C-alpha cells in the first residue's frame, strides 16, 4: 500500500460531515480507490455508477461472495410460476468487462478501519480510500424460539434469494389438496414490507391453479398491521375466498415457538400445524457491518441522510437494507436509489466532480393474482434527522382490471429496467 497519510476522524454526524471531505484527488499516488462490499441492488449499482461516471479517474472494486445474484424482488413470482429462476438470476460479467470494475468473487471477512483495508476471508487485504458497505440483511434465527439455520432446511425462510428460494418452491409444489401452509411473518423493520403478503398471494395462486379447494394458508404475524393491507385483503377475498387467514398479535397473543420436527407453530392462542412452514425471522444488517462497528443497538447502520455516509466512519458509506434510511423501506429500489447518492458523493470527494443535493425514491409493486398488480411508492429528501418522505402514493382498492393489468405490466418493465441499471449492459 502506498504511503497514504493515515487520519483518524472524530465521529461526525449530519450536514457537517461533508465539510471535512478531503481533496483526495490531489493525492500524488495513483487513482483513488473505492471498494464496494456486496453485489446486490445497492452495491452493484454504486460500483457501476462510479465506474461509469468517473471513467479512468477512479479504481472501483466490487467484492461479492457469489458469482451470481438472484434478486429477492420477483422471487415471489418465481414461487407463483410466473418467472423462471434463471430469469431472476444475474451475473457480474458486464460490470467487469464493460465498466472496468474489478469484481472479486470472494468473501470479505472484516474491515480494518484504521488501516482502511478490507480483510478477505483468505487473509488478503484490499485497501480503499472510500468503502461502500452493502451486505444486505442477516437473519436473526433465534428471534423465533425453536428456529435456527438448521431448522431453515425444514422450515425455509427464503428471505435471501438463492437455494432457500428453490427449497421453498419445491416444498410448495409438493403440497397436496387438503394440506395447510403456515407463514410466520417478520417483525419490523425487515426487507421488502409487502413481500410476505405477495408471497402468500402467489402460494394461493398456485393452489387455485391446481384446482385445490381445501388448502389453507395461515399467517401468524407479530405486527398489528402490514403493508398494502387493504389491497391484499381485498384481493384475497376476491380471488382466494376462504383460503387465507391472517392472525395479528391481538388474536394469536404472541409466537411462543416453532418445532421443525412436528411442523408446529405454538402461539398463546393455539398451536398451528403446517405441512409447510415458512418462517421469516427478524433481521439485522449483514454481519460485516456489525463487525466493522457500523451498527447501533437496532442492528442496522445509522447514516447521514444527505449522503448515506456512515455516522461511525467518514470514509465508509452504508447503503441498502443494512442502513437506517429513515422513511425509506428496505427494498431493491431503495438500495438502487441510495447507491446513486453515495456514488455521486464519493465521486465528488475523490475526483472533484459536481455534487448535487440528494434525492431518493422508491416504488414497490406486488402481484396478487394474474394481471392484478398493485404498487406503493414515495419520494424522499434528507432532513436534519432522517431521510424523510416528501410525497407518496398507493394503489386504490376497487381499481378496474385494465389499470391493475397495466400496473403488473409496468412492474415487468421495471424489473428489466432496474436489473439493467444494477448489472449493466
Amino acid at each position: 500500500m502506498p504511503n497514504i497519510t493515515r487520519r483518524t476522524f472524530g465521529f461526525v454526524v449530519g450536514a457537517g460531515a461533508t465539510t471535512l471531505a478531503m481533496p483526495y484527488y490531489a493525492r500524488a499516488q495513483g487513482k483513488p480507490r473505492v471498494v464496494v462490499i456486496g453485489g446486490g441492488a445497492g452495491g452493484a449499482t454504486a460500483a457501476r455508477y462510479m465506474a461509469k461516471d468517473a471513467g479512468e479517474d477512479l479504481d472501483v472494486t466490487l467484492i461479492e461472495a457469489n458469482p451470481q445474484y438472484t434478486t429477492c424482488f420477483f422471487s415471489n413470482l418465481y414461487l407463483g410460476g410466473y418467472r423462471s429462476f434463471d430469469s431472476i438470476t444475474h451475473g457480474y460479467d458486464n460490470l467487469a468487462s464493460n465498466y472496468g470494475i474489478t469484481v472479486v468473487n470472494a468473501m470479505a471477512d472484516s474491515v480494518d478501519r484504521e488501516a482502511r483495508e478490507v480483510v478477505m476471508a483468505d487473509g488478503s487485504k484490499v485497501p480503499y480510500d472510500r468503502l461502500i458497505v452493502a451486505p444486505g440483511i442477516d437473519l436473526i434465527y433465534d428471534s423465533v424460539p425453536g428456529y435456527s439455520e438448521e431448522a431453515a432446511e425444514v422450515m425455509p425462510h427464503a428471505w435471501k434469494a438463492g437455494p432457500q428460494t428453490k427449497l421453498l418452491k419445491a416444498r410448495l409444489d409438493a403440497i397436496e389438496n387438503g394440506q395447510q401452509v403456515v407463514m410466520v411473518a417478520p417483525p419490523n423493520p425487515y426487507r421488502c414490507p409487502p413481500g410476505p403478503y405477495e408471497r402468500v398471494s402467489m402460494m394461493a395462486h398456485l393452489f387455485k391453479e391446481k384446482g385445490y379447494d381445501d388448502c389453507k394458508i395461515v399467517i401468524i404475524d407479530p405486527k398489528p398491521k402490514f403493508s398494502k393491507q387493504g389491497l391484499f385483503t381485498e384481493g384475497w377475498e376476491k380471488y382466494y375466498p376462504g383460503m387465507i387467514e391472517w392472525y395479528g398479535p391481538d388474536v394469536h397473543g404472541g409466537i411462543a415457538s416453532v418445532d421443525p420436527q412436528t411442523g408446529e407453530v405454538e402461539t398463546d392462542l393455539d398451536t398451528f400445524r403446517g405441512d409447510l412452514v415458512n418462517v421469516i425471522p427478524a433481521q439485522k444488517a449483514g454481519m460485516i457491518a456489525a463487525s466493522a462497528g457500523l451498527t447501533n443497538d437496532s442492528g442496522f447502520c445509522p447514516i447521514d441522510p444527505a449522503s448515506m455516509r456512515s455516522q461511525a466512519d467518514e470514509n465508509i458509506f452504508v447503503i441498502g437494507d443494512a442502513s437506517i434510511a429513515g422513511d425509506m423501506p428496505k427494498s431493491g429500489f431503495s438500495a438502487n436509489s441510495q447507491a446513486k447518492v453515495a456514488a455521486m458523493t464519493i465521486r465528488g470527494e475523490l475526483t472533484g466532480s459536481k455534487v448535487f443535493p440528494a434525492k431518493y425514491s422508491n416504488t414497490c409493486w406486488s402481484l396478487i393474482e394474474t394481471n392484478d398488480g398493485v404498487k406503493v411508492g414515495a419520494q424522499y429528501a434528507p432532513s436534519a434527522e432522517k431521510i424523510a418522505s416528501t410525497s407518496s402514493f398507493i394503489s386504490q382498492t376497487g381499481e378496474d382490471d385494465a389499470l391493475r393489468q397495466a400496473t403488473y405490466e409496468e412492474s415487468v418493465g421495471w424489473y428489466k429496467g432496474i436489473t439493467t441499471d444494477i448489472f449493466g449492459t
Partner: protein
Amino acid sequence: MTGSGRSKPPQGPFRFEAALKRNAQALAAGLCFLLPLPATAQEGDPLKGEQVFKACKSCHQVGAGARNGVGPHLDGLFGRQAGVLDGFKYSGAMKKLGEEGLVWNAFTLNQYLEKPRAYVPGTRMSFRGMTNEGDRIDVIAYLQALSKEAPAADPRAGTQARAEIGAVAMGMEGDPEFGEYLSSECVTCHQMSGRADGIPSIVGWPSQAFIRVLFEYKTNVRSHQVMQNMTTNLGNEEIAALAAYFGSLDPQ
C-alpha cells in the same frame, strides 16, 4: 433478421404466402382486410379511423404541415422504408429492419400495430398494440388518406409557438449535466438504451414534448401514480434539464 419474436417476416419469400394466409383467415372471419393494394383503403373507414387515431396523436402528426414529435410524422408513410426520416431518432432495431427491407404498407402496418414490440423488438414506440383488427384497418385507411399531404418544410420537431402548459420550462435552456444527475431517478424504470419493455421509452424526445408530458403528469392531466409522484417535486429548471439530457441521448 433479428426479430425472434416476430411471427411473420416483413419481407422475403414467406411474405406473400403469409399475406395470403392471413387474408384468407381474415375473410373467413368475416373481416374485410385485404392485401396491400389500393383497394385496402376503401375497405377501412377513414372516419372511424380518425377516432382511432386519437390514441396515436399525442406522438404522431399526419396531414398537411405535419412535424416530428415524440414519434415521426406520418406523411408519405406508405411505400417508405422503415426508419429513414431525417431528423428523427429511431431505435437501432427499426433502422436495421428498414435496411433489411421493411417497407410500410397496409400489410406491414397492420402487423406492426397489432403487436409493435413483437413485430419490431426494440422499437421505441410505447404502445401495447391494437387488438381489434377493425380498428387497425380503419386507422390505416385514415392514414392512407391523410399521409398524401405534404409535411412541414422542416418537419424536425418544431418550435410551434403554442401557449401551453410548461411554457416557462420550454423557454429555458436546460442544463444537461443537471439533467444527467436527475436522470438517475428515471432510469431505474426507463431504460437508458431507449428500449420500451413495458415502461415507455423516453430517450431522444423533442424537448417540448418531453416538457409538456412531465407537466401533464405534474398537473394531473395525465394519470399515472408513479409519474405524478415523481413530478411533484420537479420545477421548471429540473424539467428543462431532464428534457435537455434525455433529448441528447441516441436510442440504441
